[in-house]
């Protein structure tokens, strides 16, 4: 068995290898061209992805799509008399030497028009991930339309036959992709790694009287053996959907709120936005000057692990070639790191934290006293309040922290779910929301770059009838 898996790995990797080799050559070629054109610095990247996705609906195959993407993007810097640089970027999907040449020329021409910017430039050489280790993000997976259809059909069959209230379907969807990322710059750094990803989702439609409701469930993993079984995905989707039937609004109130694990990552995603360099140097965040300050309760920690094997947000270097490293983002509730690109770092007089391109696997950790065993216990702890299982709309203002989003979920009394709720909003300010987290469930959702369980917040304004 072990032998077989190894063989499959080899084969899948071997299939990608020639394209990876071509991409590496193209990046080297582009950087050489930029140097020849007189660029003071240059950086170049290719993200290649290929695979297929199959959708089924009412247990018939509906679409089969084959994907293959991967364009080359180059940024060329030109130094001005005062030592600062200006930059121009261009991209092409054609990797022929002529096309690369034309693309570099275009980027160079733009760099002659843009203005000198003291903060512009590559990340510092000493931050480059020279000698990086391959992060184990590539796992072999079957990539045939037949296999994909089989998985999606199995999921939908269960979904359609589990509950009589499921009267229709928005289908099941399976996709499997693999690819690589190549990044190089004029510090002579050139890095690349392969990765894979597969996912399965389904969306049943339930009806009772005139009202229809839909919901979904999904599984996603780099390693196909880590995917949930089609049957389990279908059952979760059906349970989610029928539970919504009969949903109604509630009277406007201020109550404790639980953010279900499926969407609790949004809260920390908004925190990430609020401490990211771009918003900091633009003064467009309510967490300006909050490094070293208390934002969360003292028992809450956020740890980042960029090299988690199979992690959905793992990578050995960021989009500027900067070595990623494990770090505390929040320590005892205090912000211990901003999320900086080299550009934002220079604007703020700091150093890049390796966050060009986003965060890398956060785990949200509470101490033992504030970790609750599962969602049911968290509801018990809440007593009476709203369990939010869906958020809608864009009502988050990171400049002010004002938060008001459409929500659906369940009304909870004495720790027990009473009825489904819809057409309400949950509102407050993120500053209060973060500070007033009461407990975190141990029901960690493995399907995100942010690993968190359900989150109980002391109080929010719920607007309804």
């Amino acid at each position: 068995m072990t032998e077989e898996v190894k063989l499959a790995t080899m084969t899948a990797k071997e299939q990608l290898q020639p394209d990876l080799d071509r991409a590496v050559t193209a990046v080297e070629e582009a950087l050489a061209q930029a140097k020849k054109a007189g660029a003071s610095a240059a950086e170049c990247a290719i993200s290649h992805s290929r695979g297929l996705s199959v959708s089924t609906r009412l247990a018939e195959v509906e679409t089969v799509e084959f994907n293959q993407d991967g364009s080359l993007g180059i940024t060329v810097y030109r130094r001005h008399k005062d030592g600062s640089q200006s930059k121009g970027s261009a991209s092409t999907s054609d990797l022929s030497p002529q096309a690369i040449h034309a693309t570099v020329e275009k980027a160079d021409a733009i760099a002659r028009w843009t203005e000198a910017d003291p903060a512009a430039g590559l990340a510092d050489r000493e931050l480059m991930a020279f000698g990086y280790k391959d992060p184990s993000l590539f796992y072999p997976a079957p990539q045939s339309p037949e296999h994909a259809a089989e998985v999606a059909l199995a999921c939908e069959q269960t979904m359609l036959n589990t509950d009589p209230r499921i009267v229709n379907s928005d289908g099941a969807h399976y996709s499997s992709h693999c690819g690589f990322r190549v990044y190089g710059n004029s510090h002579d750094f050139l890095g690349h790694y392969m990765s894979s990803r597969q996912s399965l989702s389904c969306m049943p439609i339930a009806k009772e009287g005139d009202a229809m409701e839909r919901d979904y469930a999904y599984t996603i993993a780099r390693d196909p053996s880590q995917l949930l079984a089609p049957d389990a995905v279908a059952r979760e989707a059906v349970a989610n959907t029928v539970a919504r039937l009969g949903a109604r609004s509630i009277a406007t109130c201020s109550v404790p709120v639980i953010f279900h694990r499926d969407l609790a990552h949004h809260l920390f995603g908004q925190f990430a936005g609020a401490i990211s360099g771009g918003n900091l140097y633009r003064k467009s965040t309510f967490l300006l000057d909050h490094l070293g300050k208390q934002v969360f309760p003292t028992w809450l920690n956020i740890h980042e692990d960029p090299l988690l094997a199979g992690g959905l947000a793992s990578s050995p270097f960021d989009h500027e070639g900067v070595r990623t490293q494990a770090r505390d983002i929040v320590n005892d509730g205090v912000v211990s790191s901003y999320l900086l690109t080299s550009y934002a770092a220079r604007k703020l007089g700091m150093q890049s934290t390796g966050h060009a391109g986003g965060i890398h696997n956060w785990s949200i950790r509470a101490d033992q006293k504030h970790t609750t065993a599962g969602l049911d216990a968290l509801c018990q702890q809440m007593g009476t309040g709203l369990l939010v299982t869906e958020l809608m709309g864009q009502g988050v203002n990171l400049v002010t922290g004002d938060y008001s989003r459409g929500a659906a979920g369940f009304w909870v009394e004495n720790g027990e779910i009473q009825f489904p709720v819809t057409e309400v909003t949950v509102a407050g300010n993120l500053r209060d929301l973060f500070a007033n987290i009461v407990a975190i469930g141990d029901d960690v959702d493995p399907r995100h770059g942010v690993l968190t369980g359900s989150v109980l917040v002391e109080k929010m304004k719920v607007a309804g009838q």
Partner: protein
Amino acid sequence: MKIPTPVAEQLLAPGQLDESMLQQCLHDLAGARIDYADIYLQSSSHEAWVLEDSIVKSGSFSIESGLGIRAISGEKTGFAYADSIDPAALTRAAQAAKGIADQGGDGKAKVLTTVTTHDLYQPENPLSSLSESKKIALLQAMDKHARKADPRIKEVTVSLTGVYEHILVAATDGTLATDIRPLVRLNCSVLAEQNGRRERGSSGGGGRVNYHYFFEPVWLDANEANSEQPRYLSFVDEAVRQALIMLEAKPAPAGTMPVVLGNGWPGVLLHEAVGHGLEGDFNRKGSSAYAGRIGEQVAAKGCTIVDDGTLANRRGSLQVDDEGTPTQHNVLIEDGRLVGYMQDKLNARLMGVAPTGNGRRESYAHLPMPRMTNTYMLAGEHHPDEMIASVKRGIYAPQFSGGQVDITSGKFVFSASEAYLIEDGKLTAPLKGATLIGNGPEAMARVSMVGNDLALDTGIGVCGKDGQSVPVGVGQPTLKIDAMTVGGTE
């Protein structure tokens, strides 16, 4: 020569393709027992210039070209694409796409016949309509204007983007259509600061025009002579105005109350609450709250909603959709009664109706589906002042930042970026954090007054569906909805 020279030169010549090879590829596809197949060729150039901290600090340019081939058998679709346009890519993609077929088809593609299209916008490259130095000067002038407007303006970001796109569609039903599509957009965003409080405001616009559009004079005040300025400065003024108003804004109330929506961009409500639910795919599948309701009263009397892809120079307009069907003026709801859905070819065929010119795709790498173009409600007879005066306690919302809908339950949400409390028929405090939530059919039944001031948005809309983004337009007159849930904190 059925293919116009500029399109042939852009899409066919570089890869040494010609019309006969497209026809042959379609014959091969049809021969594989396929009901319908099409080839989509696309080449687009895109540029973006960004000013921040008073310097034009980044510029980018990209060219994307490729082909997508779709083969349909019954309700099944096979789809493959390639990021190059040449005979080998054509053959490879066709082979992959037709793997789906296992039934039907008469095995012969119709002879390609050119589709007659509209003449809605000029087939000229906006990227070259202005020199690079003038593009940069434009951004700098906007930055200066914003900073001069008020000392509380601390940050200014300006972006200018242009797209120039050639497309060609050839299908087994004989369709041969081409389009040359310019699209430009200019946006200004400012940050105002006062006593430690910071707020943003933003404004912008554009359309299927060239960059000279931004220099055209616009009236500041219709009643005053000589009060005109170039359009690009009006975007700056609007962004500054919004940011300064937000500095004074108080938390929005929470609860159900009457809401008056401003004209123009607030039409995003119609887009979310009604438009998506009337797209053919959701209705064929029965997953929309509006499915099977043609002929029924689904909105209050007085509400007539259309989707119109034929408006000259508009952001959401197209001469032909991405399946080669000429766009149309489609009435969706007439005096409150549901009269039509928006269709692409696949869903029209399966529902036994005609396509409506709404088959759109983000690019060659995406499958077409029914999408909106410019969606708006026709004007009524009420004066906006009279509508506000009729509200005892409620909200007036003239600007929105965006919305979202669940087409199955009909539930929608959208966020006001500018809103005011109405007390005893008068606008009082500006409000922040006002999110509106409702149910499409219910909200439309509660429309009690329709304004006489229909306006379309300034050309900023992007609509997302199944991971595909396309430019759209929205519009409406001022609307009064008798009861909506406002999600504030007070």
